[in-house]
């Protein structure tokens, strides 16, 4: 047993583009302790987002493993030919990753990634809905709605519940995205360049929000290329030539 919440061991990822093989991650190791705020920096195209996606169970590495609470997130490498192969489903790893994404992980993306047909409230509520069957939802609906309203209130979006993403500013959209990531009370919040698409003022405002979350005990793994943003973290790692180095 280790005290780490999330552990990455020798994670490798190669993209094949025609005849070119691009080895993005060449054996990344990482440990994240509960309540820690880790920032990963690197140049554009260095593989920061790829690493974050693998850590967050959105992508599958060709080699290496990620452990969450000492539980492997991916199938053993020999059974990992396809990202979500039948074997993967059979051995339950895909199911496990879905469970993590539903209940344990929260994601904030650079481009917000909100559903345009849904309003603010629905976008956030959807994250609670995904994990519930119709029967369970009928019992949890009121509570989920109350939790959603609370998180949105915390994000300062109480007045914007019925607005659609297209009617919000960039900063507001990113706050909706954070609310969606937090509504199911994740153990780890993954943030991929959360301020990358915001102006300086909105970026600063958002970072103070993230800092506040960290202060409340939220474990955060953030990817950024901005040293000022990375400077808010407890620990900064740099991704260079496919490997993580302590700064």
């Amino acid at each position, binding site marked *: 047993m280790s005290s780490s919440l999330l552990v990455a061991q020798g994670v490798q990822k190669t993209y094949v583009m025609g005849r070119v093989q691009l080895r993005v991650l060449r054996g990344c190791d990482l440990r994240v302790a509960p309540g820690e705020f880790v920032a990963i920096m690197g140049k554009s195209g260095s593989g920061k987002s790829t690493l974050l996606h693998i850590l967050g169970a959105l992508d599958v590495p060709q080699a290496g493993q990620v452990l969450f609470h000492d539980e492997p997130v991916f199938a053993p490498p020999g059974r990992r030919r396809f990202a979500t192969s039948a074997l993967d489903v059979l051995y339950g790893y895909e199911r496990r990753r879905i469970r993590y994404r539903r209940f344990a992980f929260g994601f904030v993306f650079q481009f917000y990634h909100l559903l345009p*047909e849904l309003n603010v409230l629905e976008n956030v509520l*959807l994250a609670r809905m995904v994990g519930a069957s119709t029967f369970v939802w009928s019992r949890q609906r009121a509570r989920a709605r109350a939790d959603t309203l609370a998180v949105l209130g915390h994000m300062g979006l109480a007045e914007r519940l019925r607005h659609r993403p297209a009617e919000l500013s960039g900063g507001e959209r990113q706050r909706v995205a954070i609310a969606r990531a937090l509504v199911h009370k994740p153990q780890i919040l993954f943030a991929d360049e959360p301020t990358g698409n915001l102006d300086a003022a909105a970026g600063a405002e958002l970072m103070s929000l993230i800092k506040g979350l960290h202060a409340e005990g939220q474990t955060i793994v953030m990817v950024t290329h901005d040293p000022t943003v990375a400077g808010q973290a407890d620990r900064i790692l740099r991704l260079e030539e496919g490997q993580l180095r302590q700064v």
Partner: protein
Amino acid sequence: MYKLFLTLRYLRKRRIAYFAIAAVLLCTAMVLIVMSVMGGFLDQLKFKARGLLGDIIVDNKSYSGFPLYEEFIADIAQWPEIQIATPVLYSFGLLRFQDTAQTHTVRVVGVRLEEVYEVNAFKHGLYYEKYYPGTTTLAEQQQPVIGVDLNAEPIELKDNKGEVIGRGARPLLPPPYEAALQKSWAAGVRDDETPPTEWTEICRDANIPIIVGEHEVDPLHPPALTGDPWPGLIIGRDIIAKRLADGTYKRYSMYPRGCIVTLTMIPTTGGGSVDTPIKQPFRYADDSRTGIYEIDSQHVYCDFALLQKLLHMDQAERVDPESGAVVGTVPARCSQIQIKIHESVGGRPVNVKAVAQRLQEHYLSYATNPRFKLSIGDTQLVEYVEAMTWEESQSHIIAPVEKERQLVTILFAIISLVAAVLVLCILYMIVLQKTRDIGIIKAIGGSSGGVALIFISYGAAVGIVGSTLGTVLGYYFVRYINPFQDWLTRVNPAWQVWDRSVYSFDEIPHTVRGHDMIAVIVAAIAASTLGSLLAAWRAGAMQPVEALRHE
């Protein structure tokens, strides 16, 4: 839960889905209309055939007919299943209206009117019998002429506002006809089959019973029955009147009730050889409408015994051609026996087919029965006799229509697969457009199966909405298909899509059956759901990261 939520949201917000719904709607309506019209056509065919023929038909399909029908009818009258049986004669002739050059080739049907009234629905299609009950007869008759009641008070003629515009003598029909008209008038029977004429308007303005139909009028004398007595003839309505676009029949004053018509026919001998043509005057007693155009535009009906005599099919002496001595009798012949059977006997339903089989066996036994002493020719006529249910007798018409209905339904169902392909294309397009959304759903915990199910539900929802609306459209279109066609014809006569001379019936059949509706709805939902499978598979198989990176 999120699957249902997103399905409904996409259905409402993605307007492109309306095209898929419209495609399913139109295909559903199209198939339902085809099934209803073809099914209705078949039902109508069966219904009319039964109404015209009775339950069982005994026939040998020979123009020369067959003998021993009276003995057969007397025998089977004892059977508990038999309600009534009547012989019928069929021949061909040339019909000519007196004082006109108009002639028609017709099929002449010899019937015993009172018996036919009981065997089938013939009576319900008679025009004058409806308004002058009891006056239609095939016996010899004179022409009824409308006269005036010279002793009665003059009647006042009023305009639309009820103001008197003139006075005149009261028109009257001869006694039996007048009494019959008063009787039907009192019973509330009104003519809704004939458009108003100047004559009916005068009757209405004078507040006297409308003298229905066309009659000779003599305004200076009392009503009378005039002219030489001639046998009565019932004429197919499409021969004597013209059907208008609204379904009513326009009648002509040149063909008043009781006018003389002449039939020219060619009799045949029992051996089948042709005899000298005969010519017989009749009086137009009534006109009949069965609803089958081919019958109503070709058939005329006269008295069975008279036609039998004219065609030399009545009983005659058999003469030895060499010695000239009478050596026996040639039995009378008929063309067909129509039989009506009881629905049940002793509380048990009657098996029509089994009764038909027994009837045939009974008739065929006559061929070897020594009490009849049949000639070789007559024996052959007997041996060819068949007893068929009304359905079997019309199988040459019903079976092809049944096959045609199945074929057309299958063809239109195949055409309707276009809707499934359209659903596939549209949903596939939506999946491509929504690639990033799919990535988002998966990033927050949506499973591949769950995402696939969103699009399968989407396809099913398109099917449910489209097929429901299509069924409503199809139902109302079929329900009002005849007024719609009449309206089209009024706008432009060239747009008449239902040609009565081609399709037998004078109205487009419009039976919408419940099980047809359910079958069409289920098939449309299934096709639409099937159409969504490829898109659903594509959506489910997407990797979250790849979907999120989609530009």
